[in-house]
């Protein structure tokens, strides 16, 4: 269970921090351009954070006590494949969900 004090600190802190990031250049720094090396690193934030966040969840899901699970592994692979081929987020989510439920039905 998530602690309620921690939760509110995170909500308020994340809200303020996200606003600061969005306001940064528009509000304070103005029209001066960012150094190229900073922009170059910022371009990779999404692909640098999100894969690392979910890799353990895919390999060692808590719902199966940390044991690799064929249904979840298949669902992850299908989501990735559909996403790469269609470049469509919704299609990938639906593909992954169908694979997950299909595999769980077949295995059970």
């Amino acid at each position, binding site marked *: 269970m998530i602690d309620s004090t921690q939760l509110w600190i995170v909500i308020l802190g994340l809200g303020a921090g996200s*606003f600061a990031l969005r306001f940064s250049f*528009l509000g304070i720094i103005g029209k001066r351009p960012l150094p190229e090396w900073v922009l170059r*690193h910022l*371009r990779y*934030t999404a692909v640098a954070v999100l894969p690392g966040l979910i890799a*353990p969840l895919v390999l060692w899901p808590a719902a199966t006590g940390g044991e690799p699970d064929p249904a979840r592994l298949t669902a*992850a692979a299908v989501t990735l494949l559909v996403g790469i081929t269609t470049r469509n987020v919704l299609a990938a989510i639906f593909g992954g969900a169908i694979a*997950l439920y299909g595999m*769980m039905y077949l295995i059970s």
Partner: protein
Amino acid sequence: MASASSKSAYWKGFKDGAPFLLVVGPFGVLFGVVATEAGLNITETMAFSIMVIAGAAQFTAIQLMQDEAPTLIVLATALAVNLRMAMYSAALTPHLGSAPLWQRACIAYFTVDQSYAVSAAQFEKTPDWTLSQKIAYFFGAVTPVCPMWYVVTWIGAYAGTAIPPEFALDFAIPITFLAIIAPLLRTLPHVLACATSVILALSFAWVPYNLGLLIAALGAMMVGAQAELMLSRRIKP
């Protein structure tokens, strides 16, 4: 006539933003469901979507709090997910930077993936638009997307309590994130950064306080940036 052209710019923005309802709708419902599953009540779930208004960072924070990560790590990692917002802010500044401060503050709050994407593309096409036309377009694009984010979060939070565990909703976050990542893997540096992130996160999973993820993210960003640099040097004569 400035007011008439601002009006048409607003509606053009509205029309360009509207298709994103298809993405924002299910994504917001999913956040409401996942937050409720994690034990958040309606007020807490709604506060999350209204204060933060950034899906990926919200999912990240919920996941890390469920893993009992310390507050500072939760904030640092979720904010790292949102670092791209600083890039959006920098990209919009040449177009909207001369607006009054209160308008810039409103624009900043509503700077999300969708409003940034359509506005950046539009301002590139029509650089001769006036400031008021550009602002009208931006808020036009925001109108269908952001209020809907609150509404669908609320729907998900209500529906969430009714969904039994057989539906394996624990896997909603991994599937959603994989679906977001896959279309981003469009260049070799992106693929290398992604692979680095996975390898480092798994090998540093033993590091306490979920610090392994931050190590992985920093390493992956450096690999992506370096790979881009090396590729561009090779292409240049």
